[in-house]
């Protein structure tokens, strides 16, 4: 067997030989455990909605605004129940504000929005 087929001794680069390596592994383990634990929290449907990512929310807002506008143009304002249009507008505004401020709407905000009476 030639030299090229024998392993090179790289053991001096072995991190487990260093005294600070176990602390590094433990720190990583703790960080990982914290992140995994946060996944285990049960979520209701409103919380899930509240965690929508910004791009999806922005796209939904644009889509709602477009659909509302298109429907109003095609059939006139009378055929669209005002309550639904109001909800759509409020949802679009909330989404827009959330995207602008870089934060997700909370479940409470969404709940309040859907219950709010249309003027």
């Amino acid at each position, binding site marked *: 067997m030639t030299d090229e*087929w024998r392993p090179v001794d790289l053991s*001096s*680069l072995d991190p487990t030989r*260093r005294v600070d390596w176990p602390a590094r592994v433990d720190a990583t383990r703790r*960080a990982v455990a914290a992140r*995994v634990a946060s996944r285990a929290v049960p979520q209701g449907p409103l919380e899930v909605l509240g965690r929508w990512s910004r791009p999806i929310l922005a796209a939904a807002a644009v889509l709602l605004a477009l659909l509302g506008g298109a429907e109003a143009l095609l059939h006139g304002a009378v055929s669209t129940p005002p309550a639904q249009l109001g909800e759509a507008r409020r949802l679009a505004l909330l989404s827009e504000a959330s995207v602008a401020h870089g934060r997700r709407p909370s479940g409470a905000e969404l709940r309040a929005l859907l219950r709010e009476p249309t003027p």
Partner: protein
Amino acid sequence: MEETDAALVARVRGGDARAADRLLERYFRACRAVALAVTGDEADADDACQEGFVAAIEQIDTCRDPARFGGWLLQIVRNRARNLVRHRAIRTTEPLELHQLAGGVSAAAEVERGELRERLLAALAELSQAQREVVLLHDLEGWKHDEIAGHLGLAAGTVRSHLHHARRHLRRILSEDLA
């Protein structure tokens, strides 16, 4: 029987920290080897492998093929390491005395090991990144050819070739260095 990566990933997605721990035991050293192949610096490699592993767990829902978790993870670590190299800040070296006190190693032995490390890192720097990854995963971490091929997305023949050239190159540089 060893639990598959896909099964462990599914458990992590369900919030099972022990599964994440198993993935850490399985891949953390390989992450460090890949990070070292990119950075050429042990402290940077430690940072990159830690940050990369945590980031991978955070975004585990985006791992499209959980059976190939290892390759996906190593790519995240590789990217982290590249970013770290790009934005590398001047790092002050930890005083040698700290290692000596904590480990109880003699000063002479520590200095000798430090010099050997420096020589090896310098010799590795002359290889291509793929060659460095292959030789570190094989000769340091003990991975088999097919494991390396699978996780790095290389053909088995390419892995053998990289390993062969890397070893030959390292031996030549190290023997010239000692001569």
